[in-house]
C-alpha cells in the first residue's frame, strides 16, 4: 500500500488559497492600470473606477492573509549553508537531476527565496500602496514621496508577479505539488525524493 504523509494542514491550505485568490485579482487589476494594453482587465472588477476603489482594499486583505502564512512557515524558511550548496547546483535542479543534491528540509532554497522575496515585495507594496491610495491617504503625503511610491509599487509588483509565475510553473513542473496544496498529503516517496530531511523529521525514520 502507498504510504502518504500530511504536507499542509487544512488551515494552511485555506490560508494559502485565500492569499492566492487575492493575489490573482490584485495582479490582474494592477496590470490593468500599469500598461494600456492590459486596461481591458479593469472589466474584471467592474470597470476602471471600481478597480481603483477595490484594488487597495483587496491588497490589504492579501497582506494580512500573507502575514498569517508567514507566521506559519517562518521557521521552515530560514536560509542555511545547505541552501547555498543547493542553489549552486541550479543546473541539476532545472534538469530533473536530483540525485546527489544536498538534502532539502520542508522547503527548498528556491521556495525559501520566494518566501523572502514575497515578504519584502509585499511590505513595499503595502507601504507604497498607502502612500498612493486615493482619495484617503495620498493627499496627505508630499508629492515627491507619492512619485517614489508609484515607482516602488510598480517595481515591487513586477518582481512579485515574476516570482509567482515561477512559483505556479514549479508547482506544475514538480508533479505532486498541486495535490499537496489542494488535498494536503504527499506520497512518502515524493517526500523522500524532494524533501528528504523533512521526510526524516516527520516519519521519524
Amino acid at each position, binding site marked *: 500500500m502507498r504510504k502518504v504523509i500530511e504536507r499542509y494542514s487544512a488551515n494552511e491550505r485555506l490560508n494559502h488559497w485565500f492569499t492566492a485568490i487575492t493575489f490573482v485579482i490584485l495582479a490582474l487589476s494592477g496590470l490593468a492600470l500599469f500598461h494600456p494594453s492590459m486596461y481591458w482587465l479593469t472589466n474584471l472588477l467592474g*470597470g476602471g473606477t471600481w478597480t481603483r476603489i477595490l484594488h487597495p482594499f483587496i491588497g490589504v486583505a492579501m497582506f494580512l492573509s500573507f502575514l498569517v502564512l508567514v507566521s506559519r512557515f517562518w521557521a521552515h524558511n530560514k536560509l542555511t549553508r545547505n541552501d547555498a550548496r543547493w542553489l549552486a547546483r541550479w543546473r541539476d535542479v532545472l534538469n530533473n537531476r536530483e540525485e546527489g543534491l544536498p538534502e532539502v528540509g520542508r522547503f527548498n532554497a528556491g521556495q525559501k527565496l520566494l518566501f523572502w522575496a514575497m515578504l519584502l515585495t509585499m511590505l513595499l507594496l503595502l507601504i507604497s500602496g498607502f502612500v498612493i491610495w486615493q*482619495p484617503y491617504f495620498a493627499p496627505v503625503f508630499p508629492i515627491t514621496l507619492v*512619485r*517614489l511610491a508609484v515607482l516602488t509599487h510598480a517595481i515591487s509588483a513586477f518582481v512579485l508577479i515574476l516570482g509567482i*509565475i515561477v512559483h505556479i510553473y514549479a508547482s506544475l513542473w514538480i508533479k505532486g505539488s498541486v495535490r499537496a496544496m489542494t488535498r494536503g498529503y504527499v506520497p512518502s516517496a515524493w517526500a523522500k525524493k524532494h524533501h528528504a530531511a523533512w521526510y526524516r523529521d516527520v516519519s521519524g525514520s
Partner: protein
Amino acid sequence: MALQSLDIKARSATTTESPSVRKTTRVAKLIDISKCIGCKACEAACMEWNDLRDVVGVNKGEFDSPRDLSDQSWTVMRFYEEEPNGQFEWLIRKDGCLHCEDPGCLAACPAPGAIVQYANGLVDFHEEHCIGCGYCITGCPFDIPRISKKDSKAYKCTLCSDRVAVGLEPACIKACPTGALVFGSKEDMIDHADERVADLKGRGFENAGLYDPAGVGGTHVMYVLQHADRPQLYGLPIDPIISPLVSLWKGVTKPIAMLLLGLTVLGSFFHYIHVGPNETDEDEEENEAAS
C-alpha cells in the same frame, strides 16, 4: 466632452495614433503679470462659464481667495509680496493649468482617453473616463489637478476648450479689464510677449522675460514676468520637467516589464517542453526495500 471640430494630438493610456489629419492653429494664452491688478474678474468669469461655485472660504488676512485651486476653482489669483530689488513689489499671478506641450498628467494617466491633448495644444480632462486614481497629480510639474471630494474625479482649467473649439476666446480673457490676459495663436502670443518684455526692460525691469518653459516642451499658457530670472518669486518652478521618477515609471519600465513577464511565462512553458515534468515513482519505496 468630445469636440468634433478639434482633432486629438495625444490621448492618455493609448499606444496607437490618435485622429490627427486636420490642421489647427496652435493657440496660447498670455498672462502679463505686469498688467494684472488682481481684480479676480477672470476667476468670476471662469466660475460663470463653467458653472462652478466654490464654498465660501476663510479670510486669513491675505487677498488670496479662494486660497487654493480646487474642483470648483480652476483658476486662482496668487498674491506675492516681494522685494526683488530692495523695493516692495506686489506680484499677482493667475494660477491654473499651463497646458504643457508635453503634459505630465497625460503621460501618467492610466485611463484611456481620460486626458487628451487637442491639436491646438489644449490639454483637457474628460471626467467621464477618469477613474480617480490621482496619477495626473503625480505627473504634473505645476501642482494643478484636483480630485473632487464629491465624485473623486480630477478637474482643472480646460482653457475653455468648448469655447475655443467654436472660435471664441476663453472666458477669463473676455473678462480681463486691463489686457493682462490675451489669447491667440502661439506665434502671435510670443510676438506680443516680446513687445511687452521690451517695454518692461525700457522701464527698468532688466530681467523681464517670457515664461514658456522648455522642459515641458513649452506651454500653451505663458507668463510675462518682470523678473523672469526668478520665477520662484511668483511661485513658479524654475526649470519644470516631468519628474524623472514619473518618466521612469511611465517610460521604459512599462514595455520592458511587460516583455519580461511574457518571456517568463514563455520560458517556463518551453522548460516543460524541453525537460519535462519532474515525476515521482510512487512505487519506488517497495523497489528500494527490495534492493
